[in-house]
């Protein structure tokens, strides 16, 4: 896989405040890279440098081999940027708005007309083409902004919190759009606070905290790295002591914790089992329980969700 975005020892200071601290990371062509981190971690700063809006204090970023400091125009040609705000011209229609930005990328008028129509269809705004931009709902504006970043057919999309402030349906729509764009061959580098989005669509994740990358890579690898143990959630009918005794004898079981609350049946027991082992070991546990004549009602492995990875990786430092 070839690398399309290359952040090299990037540092950004605002006066004394260190926003990005010696950050190095690479994004592969075609990846959907989720850039997550707590507020003030330096995500927006990094993206603004990437989009040639701001100079780094030291270090640099290369996009498609072009340096943001030396060849900013080549970088702009490759990158479509959607900031964490929506810039509106209040006296323009949706179509005019798109056409204006397409013209700013030197596209000739003849081409623009058909591109704009296609883009509006892609973001599902064709029926609002002649409405004033100002009158669109937030979700529509967000989709229009996405269409705007696509006007010059960039290879890389840099999206700063594309799903913030949207209702669940609109969020899902944006998510589907991103997947669709990735399928069209675009590399997507986006920041978000919504970890469900990351889990759903990202091929790669980078967790930033205090301007430093605390974890990065493929989502599955990261799970293994950060959370070697699995958690089993077990419900059964029988005595707690017996269950604990059976489970305690199985190698690899780290702890067995009775789970309070939720249960209404008088005889049932709910347990959480921390465990390090393979899938075969998991099925062995179930077998052991059954052999011990315990009546198993419910046996699942808790999803090792991104939320917990995030909490595990970041220390909650105040920035």
């Amino acid at each position, binding site marked *: 896989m070839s690398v399309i975005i290359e952040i090299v020892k990037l540092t950004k200071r605002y006066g004394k405040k260190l926003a990005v601290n010696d950050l190095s990371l690479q994004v592969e062509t075609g990846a959907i890279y989720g850039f997550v981190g707590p507020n003030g971690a330096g995500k927006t700063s990094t993206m603004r440098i990437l989009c*040639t*809006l701001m100079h780094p204090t030291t270090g640099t970023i290369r996009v498609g081999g072009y340096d943001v400091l030396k060849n900013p125009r080549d970088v702009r040609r490759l990158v479509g*940027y959607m900031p964490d705000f929506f810039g509106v011209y209040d006296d323009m229609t949706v179509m005019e708005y798109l056409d*204006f930005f397409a*013209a700013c990328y030197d596209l000739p*008028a003849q081409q623009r007309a058909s591109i704009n129509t296609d883009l509006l269809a892609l973001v599902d705004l064709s029926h609002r083409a002649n409405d004033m931009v100002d009158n669109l709902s937030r979700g529509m504006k967000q989709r229009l902004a996405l269409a705007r970043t696509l006007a010059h057919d960039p290879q890389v999309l840099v999206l700063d919190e594309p799903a913030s402030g949207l209702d669940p349906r609109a969020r899902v729509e944006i998510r589907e759009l991103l997947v669709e764009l990735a399928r069209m061959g675009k590399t997507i580098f986006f920041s978000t606070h919504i970890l469900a989005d990351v889990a759903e669509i990202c091929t790669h994740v980078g967790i930033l905290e205090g301007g430093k990358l605390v974890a990065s890579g493929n989502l599955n690898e990261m799970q293994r790295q950060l959370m070697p143990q699995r958690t089993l959630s077990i419900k059964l009918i029988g005595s707690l002591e017996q269950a604990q005794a059976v489970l305690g004898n199985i190698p690899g079981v780290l702890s067995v914790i009775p789970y309070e609350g939720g249960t209404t049946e008088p005889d049932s027991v709910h347990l959480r089992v921390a465990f390090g082992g393979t899938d075969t070991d998991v099925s062995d546990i179930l077998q052991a329980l059954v052999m011990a004549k315990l009546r198993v009602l419910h046996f699942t492995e808790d999803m090792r969700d991104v939320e917990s990875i995030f909490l595990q990786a970041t220390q909650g430092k105040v920035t």
Partner: protein
Amino acid sequence: MTPNLRTLTTFWQTWSNRLGFENPLLNKELRSRMRGRRWVFILTLYLALIAMAILSLYLAFSSSSSFYTDERQWMGKAVFGLVVGLQALLVSFITPALTATAISGERERQTFDLLRTTLLRPRSIIFGKVSSAVAFVLLLLIASFPMQALAFLLGGVAPSEFFISIAMLLVTTLVYASIGIMISTFLKRSLTAIVVSYALILVIFFFVPILFWTFTGISSSILFSTPTPASPTREVLFYLAIGILLCLNPISAAVFSEYNLIENQRLWLVEIPLQNGSSVTLPSPWWIYLLIFSLLAILFLYIATWRVRRVDP
């Protein structure tokens, strides 16, 4: 009139695109300005003002007048001067406000960063903003031409006077526009940008000449207090200083050039007699004014472009 102007705008857009000098920002500004109803209001108000001023001038003098050529010519000059004065007033009021909001307004709407990530060049941003403002002012000026033509009907006004007035108004518009946009690139808020632009205009057009005048006032007292005839060199230097002073303000430049044209029938040059009987020839203030202020406008536009090009540190 509105549909015609729209056609004109479309025509311009089509051809600038075909010939490869399309400026998206200029097109956008033209379109939004034509779409609003405000400009129709401004235009109507401005034309009504000129009509009323001419009418009152006419009423004030027609009672006493028979139609002697002299008197008619005087009337023609008065109408011409009045219209040019009102045009100048309009230019001064409108132009700085049009451009002072240009960049700060983009910042306030958060569209400036969007523009800066596109391939639009900084000089195109400045050109688009300034030219759309100048085009709008030009439209207002042209709209008042028919009434100005009344002066030619009455007589006493030469075409050269008309062209000089237009040239001076245009250069003044350009200077105002470039001051506005330069200030706009420095300040975050549109309102402060407008106020500071007007302030800077006052400084450039009035405060600087006054400073200069104070300086030459001292030299004239030296010149004329000496009992012996002053040396020709000092005299020439004195007239040169006065000449520069006249060129620093459009009103003084225009009034003196007009005076020179009427009294001496000289358009380009001024001849001044010296005490020793010889004379010195200096350029007429109007074109020196054009020269100085065109250069100044270029300087301001250059600074504005540099500011837009600058990446945040």
